[in-house]
């Protein structure tokens, strides 16, 4: 029984950290229509920034300031937001798919830096000894797991509520107006590029926070955690849950992570150990097929977009 609770807590903590990434992506794609293919990169920036700020001195990487975890998380938000501001300032004024290509590129470059700039990032060995919240509880495994779950759940809930409020604000409606009809929004005096940049930076900052939360939950980060598969998973979560809907983003993360874990467990029992790496590729094929099918057959996902977003109209219709 305790095993089930412990596994449940572990599963939910991981799934909710993905939900956090997914919420950031929903702000960019679901609300604003920005196609970010570099999710893994922005998550990585946050994870590394927070790790460098909070790890104890003496590690073989840059930083090691031993600062409190909360400072690390704020650092993660700032670092990912800044990276997004630079990329966004260059590409958002151009064709929509140039953003896709440059974010694809930035994820590759961040992967290269994480892997090769050993003096800064620890190279292929990554960064260990990342402080974990409630480390003092570590002797009571269950209490530790539940406390971690509570922290991740609280962060996710806070971001969820903040985003719900934002999309219902005039700012959120301008984002949708730009996505639906840029010319009309421009004619109303809205600076489309500035709003797009704000949404892109804020969404990426949330991804950075999610990366930091994940890093502190596991206590160790390495470049191979931030390959394009994570970008792809997050997209699948958002499309399946329902883009344009924060509840859909969270639901999609839970559903896809559940399917991913279940299929992973099935693979380990079906395939012999030497074929595991090969079989893992089949999981990605399956997600790709499901994602294409959803795009073709039910483009709105499970929940679909919330059509009316105004706090003045909520509950009236």
């Amino acid at each position, binding site marked *: 029984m305790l095993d089930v609770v412990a596994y449940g807590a572990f599963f939910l903590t991981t799934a909710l950290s993905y939900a956090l990434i997914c919420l950031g992506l929903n702000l960019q794609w679901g609300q604003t229509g920005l196609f970010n293919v570099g999710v893994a990169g922005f998550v990585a920036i946050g994870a590394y920034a927070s790790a460098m700020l909070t790890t104890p001195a003496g590690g073989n990487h840059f930083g090691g300031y031993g600062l409190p975890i909360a400072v690390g998380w704020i650092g993660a938000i700032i670092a990912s937001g800044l990276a997004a501001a630079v990329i966004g300032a260059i590409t958002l004024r151009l064709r929509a*798919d*140039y953003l*896709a290509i440059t974010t694809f*590129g930035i994820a*590759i470059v961040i992967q290269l830096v994480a892997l090769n700039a050993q003096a800064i990032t620890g190279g292929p060995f990554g960064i260990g000894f990342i402080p974990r919240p409630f480390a003092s509880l570590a002797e009571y495994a269950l209490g530790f797991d539940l406390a971690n779950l509570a922290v991740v759940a609280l962060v996710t809930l806070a971001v969820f509520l903040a985003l719900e409020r934002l999309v219902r604000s005039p700012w959120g409606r301008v984002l949708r107006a730009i996505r639906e009809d840029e010319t009309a929004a421009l004619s109303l005096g809205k600076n489309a590029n500035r709003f797009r940049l704000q949404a892109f930076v804020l969404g990426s900052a949330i991804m950075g926070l999610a990366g930091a939360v994940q890093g502190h939950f596991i206590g160790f980060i390495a470049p191979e955690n931030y390959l394009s598969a994570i970008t792809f998973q997050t997209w699948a979560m958002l499309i399946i849950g329902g883009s344009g809907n924060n509840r859909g983003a969270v639901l999609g993360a839970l559903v896809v992570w559940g399917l991913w874990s279940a299929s992973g467990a099935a693979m380990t029992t079906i395939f012999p150990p030497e074929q595991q790496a090969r079989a893992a590729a089949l999981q990605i*094929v399956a997600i790709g097929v499901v994602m294409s099918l959803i795009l073709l057959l039910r483009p709105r996902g499970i929940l679909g977009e919330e059509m009316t977003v105004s706090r003045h109209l909520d509950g009236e219709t």
Partner: protein
Amino acid sequence: MSLQFIADGLLIGAMVGLGAIGVTLTYSILGFANFVHGEFIAWGAYACLVIAGLIGLAVGADIAPLGPFSIGWTILVAAVIAMAFTGGLALALDWLLFARLRKHGNAIVLVMASFGASMALRSLLEFLFTSEPAYFSRDIQIAIPLGLGIRVTPDQMLMLGLTAVLVTAMHLLITRTAIGRAMRAVSENPALARVAGIDVAGVIRKTWLIGGALACAAGIVAGITVQIRPFMGFDLLLPMFAAAILGGIGSVPGAVVGGLIVGLAESCAVQFVGAEYRAAVAFLLLIAVLLVKPAGLFGRGDA
């Protein structure tokens, strides 16, 4: 200082340029950045490998390499079949996925679908062939010194020559034939092209066929001069996008020139900075173009 890096850069550039022609054509005619293009490269290379193996089995005898090259005639025959196969793969994917999504009219959803499909196709290759590299031939070739410290293997010269032939043929096709004129018309204005009696669906089919076949050729060049891996196309994707944008979307000579510039810049980086940051070069070039001249070198300026 050895000038070897120039020869290496030209060779990388030839691969990137061949791939970038397909990227630039699908981009300008279908209106979206196609992330699956990298997978056409990898699938094309594996297809050629498998077909050459099957021909070898059917013939039975050991295939002797042709002249000074490491490859036998089976690979040349297989290359032609594999190019047709990859063109067919592109057509099938269009029919299954892209054509259906095109009806809804949102180009960025097509980019997203291509991103999902590329992940799935790449992982399928990984499942079928594992991530271990494969080779057309394991013969070691002796590089011939050309002077100025440059050494090139016969295979590399053959590949450069074949690339030049393909690129010239493509250029003539686009500028001198009715198909090319129809393709340019659709890329300028699909609605007007349709009114003028151009078969837009046919042009789209030909674009996929040509793009897929050229991607396959790029994959075979990469396979013969380097190796074949499931990630070979993924690794070429960013350089190809950079080359297509650098050359100007829609321009075939632009894509080739862009490819050569990216290739030379990469080999310069390997020579002067170190091989580990090679993949960042394409990104830096891309950012530089977007900052300075987003329409590219030969672009029409509507970026």
